[in-house]
């Protein structure tokens, strides 16, 4: 390659290094090899297998992530962020200083303030404030670290959800799950490393852009699994094809492909043979992992699952089963948290109450179950929405809404983390008296991303991929920091 300039040669080398060869090496060193089985490789590749760990790897606390995203943005003011002063302002016109320079999705002109809709009290040894909507969760609250001051710069759902998962408001960038599986490889050879589960009756509006691999190789995109029907697309054999006959067909295919490799010498052929074998194993492993009926009744009861249906409770139990089997990144999306107040199902005094019930028990059960099985030690659990909700009542179109609701607030919202490497029983960051802006320790989504990567043993500054002329990172180009204060 003598005509290549030094930097382009470097770029090319790192591209190859980070993509194909990277996971070829991972296979060889046993880091993870879902996508490739052992194979004899040419000299150049064998050489790569001997190189040391990539420069972005650092010591890890967490091996896997369960991310619970409440789609629509749950109200922090009705769950975690207790604001007694807001009670006093309930029904009063919003002070001017809150409105200057702010842009809202739906609020017009001068809205009125809206006090918390549910009573709060302190729970656990940590004395965490919670509303009365979370009776089960209150029992495990000491496992959790709250961040009250997460900020985003997007105030519409689609772009804001992309910010949470891809660090960019536009579609086409890799999601955290893709970055993580790309950086760490697989733990389980028979299951995808990045699995997505949906509940709530509707998918997130930007769909699979939230679990896209973006410019990373497509092998790292999230695989959506279903708790009803085929758990993975096309995982079931067609009608009339038994496992034995599939085996016979794959044997014939393998023999022919091996002859083809003898003739052409293309190593990709060996990879393909391995992938067909992997597919065959997945056909057994995925339905097994995705079958909650295999759980004892008392476990099913603890989560409150509804077998045969699609529910958030089912997905929480599935998340534990997948974590147990070594799936690297488990992403849950639960739709229905957009409490504007414009209709009953999307209001704080309506749909929100139901959503809390559907969420409270399974989340508590999940944390307890992970803990009892020793999985919480190396599993990072993250809970949150795409932004927060305003301290003012919504007045869409300049008129009061029919039900009680709040508009989107990107300035401050609550997320919580639990498990691997997280300081349990603490709260970080404080919002102002109205719960509208951070008063102390604001946290950017990119800080959260950096912290997650750090816990997983990935250097957030170094985990990058060259695309469109930049070394792209999940944390982007603005300064991001690991939130050391919340680490155990």
């Amino acid at each position, binding site marked *: 390659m003598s005509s290549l300039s030094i930097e382009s040669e470097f770029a090319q080398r790192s591209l190859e290094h980070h993509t194909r060869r990277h996971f070829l090496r991972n296979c060889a060193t046993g880091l993870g090899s879902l996508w490739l089985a052992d194979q004899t490789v040419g000299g150049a590749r064998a050489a790569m297998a001997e190189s040391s760990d990539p420069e972005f790897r650092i010591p890890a606390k967490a091996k896997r992530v369960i991310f619970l995203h409440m789609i629509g943005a749950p109200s922090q003011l009705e769950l975690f962020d207790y604001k007694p002063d807001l009670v006093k302002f309930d029904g009063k016109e919003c002070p001017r200083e809150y409105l200057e320079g702010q842009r809202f999705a739906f609020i017009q002109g001068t809205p009125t303030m809206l006090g918390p809709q549910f009573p709060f009290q302190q729970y656990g040894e940590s004395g965490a404030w919670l509303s009365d909507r979370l009776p089960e969760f209150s029992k495990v609250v000491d496992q959790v670290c709250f961040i009250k001051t997460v900020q985003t710069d997007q105030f519409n759902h689609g772009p804001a959800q992309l910010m949470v998962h891809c660090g960019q408001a*536009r579609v*086409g960038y890799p999601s955290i799950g893709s970055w993580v599986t790309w950086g760490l490889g697989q733990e389980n050879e028979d299951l995808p490393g990045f699995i997505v589960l949906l509940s709530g009756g509707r998918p997130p*509006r930007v769909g699979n*852009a939230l679990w896209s691999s973006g410019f990373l190789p497509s092998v790292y995109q999230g695989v959506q699994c279903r708790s009803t029907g085929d758990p993975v697309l096309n995982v079931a054999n067609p009608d009339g094809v038994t496992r034995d006959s599939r085996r016979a067909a794959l044997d014939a295919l393998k023999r022919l492909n091996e002859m083809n490799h003898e003739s052409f*010498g293309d190593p990709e052929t060996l990879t393909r043979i391995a992938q067909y074998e992997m597919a065959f194993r997945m056909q057994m492993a995925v339905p097994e992992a995705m079958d909650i009926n295999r759980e004892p009744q008392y476990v099913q009861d603890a989560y409150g699952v509804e077998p045969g249906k699609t529910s958030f409770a089912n997905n929480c139990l599935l998340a534990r089963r997948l974590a147990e089997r070594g799936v690297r990144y488990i992403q849950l999306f639960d739709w229905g948290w957009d409490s504007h107040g414009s209709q009953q199902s999307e209001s704080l005094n309506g749909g929100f109450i139901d959503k809390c019930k559907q969420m409270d028990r399974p989340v508590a059960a999940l944390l307890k179950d992970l803990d009892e099985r020793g999985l919480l030690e190396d599993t990072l659990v993250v809970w949150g929405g795409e932004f927060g909700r305003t301290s003012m009542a919504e007045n869409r179109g300049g008129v009061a809404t029919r039900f009680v609701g709040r508009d989107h607030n990107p300035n401050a919202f609550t997320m919580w983390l639990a498990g691997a490497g997280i300081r349990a029983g603490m709260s970080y960051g404080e919002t102002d008296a109205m719960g509208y802006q951070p008063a102390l320790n604001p946290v950017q989504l990119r800080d959260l991303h950096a912290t997650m990567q750090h816990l997983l043993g990935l250097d957030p500054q170094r985990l990058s991929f060259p695309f469109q002329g930049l070394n792209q990172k999940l944390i982007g180009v603005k300064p991001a920091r690991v939130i050391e204060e919340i680490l155990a």
Partner: protein
Amino acid sequence: MTSGASGDEQLSFNEHIRPIFNQHCVACHGGVEQAGGLSFVHGDAASYIVEPGEPDASYLIERVTSEDPEERMPPPDHGKGLSQQEIDLLRTWIQQGGNWGKHWAFVKPEKSEPPIASSEDSAWTTSRIDAFVLKRMRQAGLAPAPEADPQRWLRRVTLDLTGLPPTPEELAEFLQAVEAQGAAAYEATVDRLLKSPAFGERWASVWLDVVRYADSKGLGLDGRRTIWKYRDWVIRAFNADMPFDEFTVKQIAGDLLPDPSMDDLVATACNRLTQTCEEGGTDDEMFRVEAVIDRVNTNMTAWQGLTFGCVQCHSHPYDPIQHAEYYKLLAFFNNTADSDLGSEEPNVLVPLEHNDTEEARVLDRQIEATRETLWEEAYDVLANQSQWSELRDFEVSTNNSTKVVTAEVDGHFEYQTRGTVAKETTVVVEAAVPSGLTQLAALRFTGLPKDEKAARMDSEWGFVISHIQLELLEGDADPRILEIADVIADQPQTILDPMLSLNAKSQHGFGAYSRIHYPRTGYFVLAEAIPVSADARLRISLRQDVFETGAFPLVAHRGRLAITGDAPILDWESQQSVQQRRAELADMQARRRKIPSVRIPVLRELPVSFSRPTHVFDRGNYLTKTDGVPASTPEILGGPQANEEHALNRLDLARWIASPENPLTARVAVNRFWAQLFGSGIVRTQEDFGSSGDAPTHPDLLNDLAARFSTEMGWSVKTLLRELVLSSTYRQSSVVSSDKLAADPQNVYLSRGPRRRLPAETIRDQALAISGLLSKKQFGEPVHPPIPDGIWLPFQGGDRWDTPDRDDPDRYRRTIYTYIKRTIQFPVMASFDAPTREFCAPRRLPSNTPLQALMTLNDATFVEASQALAERMFDHSVELQEQLQYGFLLATCRDPQPRELQPLIDLYEIRRNEEDAHAPDEAGTESTRLNALTSVASVLLNLDEVLNK
């Protein structure tokens, strides 16, 4: 490598010097950071550190060789110092004059003299390309692979040029022809394939990735978008071998061509493939700006191979492209009428039948011309020939909680809203008829932005007069509603029909939709002159009900009213020629409506009087604008520059991009076609020809091809492809020895034929073709082939995926005709690395996954293809051996070797025994034999050889 330069050889700045600067210096002295005012990106900004001819007197050498760690560059904590070899190169370069060369890709490509091959090699170099390739190959110590078997070349070239496999008949004819005519058979085959209608379908797919084609709007709701006429335009363009320069100009600025045809307008839909956001509460202006930014980025990547994203926020870190130059480019695209509207306006009505296109276009032109003259005449009478009396000292109220007051601004009386504006606001103004008026003829309403000066830069939400009512109040008489007969807006083409202000049932009408930059004026003409008494009063109700994206009431925040009693407008309205032209217009419109058509979003330039000024965004934030900039091209590329006398528009940009003088266009295009055939580009980073991208592996070859493509080949894509697929380079066998694989794993030196997994579209199309299911029907609305249950979960409930039955050919159309939804990718495309078409994707990164195996083994389309292939094999012969041979031939375009038949025979036997055991009554029947053959067929369709070219 750099060591190749000996002392007396002339150094190349790009090859030898720039890499040193890029590696060691530009992080601090680049386009963004310019520590000490020094930049190694801009030659001018570094001239003071070099004394041409005198290395020892040059500050550059002093600093890089200094012994003092405080002095030495780069500083120790920034990285390693320069090697002795690098310092020597810098000295030699300064000795030779220290000339700062332009980055290779910014210099216009010139034809290169092909290297002379040695006599033993000359037999191999049958084309100009081969000579360049062979030289590099020999330098790397490699030798060409033998020529591929004719049947393997035939399969490769047929798949590459048409995206479909050759049939056994085509194979037989070709083998006979090779026997009879030798090399001429190859040329005849290529000519046949280039003429195939399938050619355009294959190559359109490649282009659609680049221009991010989809049948949905993306973002928020990702609703359906009707834009498939553009996809058909691309297919037709490739089939007609439309020269690439013409192809370019039409897509960037077809609307600005003199007297554009319907196809020219459809071509501009290329730039309407941006995402629009229909989510409630989203700001149309924000997403309009996003779309314009995406147009700049996509056009620059698609045609110029430049990645511009970074320049949005700051000057380019590696290339001499300034921050402001990005916004000068943006200015070319900032003045189209589209503004992220749910209706996708402006649209053009395109006939469903391509044959009706010209008739429709002729009618459209006549309709447009008639409307425009009628508008001009009426507007002239109203705006220039009538005396207007402003309504002053009026009372104003609304029907709801919206507060309004009156005020005087610059001598004009107006109403103004205060505080929160509620939706569905009707503003009611009651005023005395201005003194001196004895009759009423027309009313004028002007809606103004809250802040006129600021709105010019940052538009505000606009307004729409959904309905207007004018009442005359005289004495004790009941109010009399005056009939309004005509509405004339302040521009001839509007997004909403102003006349709808007269239709109480419609929310639409005259206004500034959906954003307001300038005050906007509408004229409401009475049906007849109305005499008024001196004490008469008027009541005007302005209903403004549009509630944009369910969040923003489009209500004029300020409004002024005036009245005229002058009759010329009424005279004009009643003129016979006006009446007659209106009748003609109605007749033409009726005829036009009879031509079944679809609405396709296109580009349309705003009239100069309403143009949006372009400003530089501070750090890329559209809300903080700084200096105003004219439309102009980046200086480094040597294109036209705007000056005081000469403003540039999109057509100027398009023509410059499509010019042989442009250093990048031909290179980028040639490289893209090359990559499709050979697996990767001569420049591997197809999306980045800047100095952070890869250098070409064969620079002379790329220059030569690019220069010839834009001149002697006349930008003909077919001519270019013909030359490539007939070259010895392309004809090589793809068999690779382990030694060669170790020496050149990526086949950079092209010492073997390309062997790549087929693209997603071809994987599916080929299975359909082999099995005989493929429909050859071309063009038309997108189709909905089978997809697995549970995948189609659109955000909008009414968005349905209706799959045609198995006897409907639309189930088996070529993949390019499949409905493309951005947020729910068609599974075959998703599994096989196709991009989601959200933004420009010049290359697909190949993967090799178990989900692909599940797809081609179990997906409905492939299962149906296996069944159909089994039937085809079954019908071919009663002999199993012959059935298997035929199936193998269909799938691979060659006869199987005996040992390759054995696994298929074994599988057949196992499966038949299994079937017989399962249903002993049916043992040995046709159905059990077919089932067993279906397993064999599935294996054939899944062969590595079949999935690869």
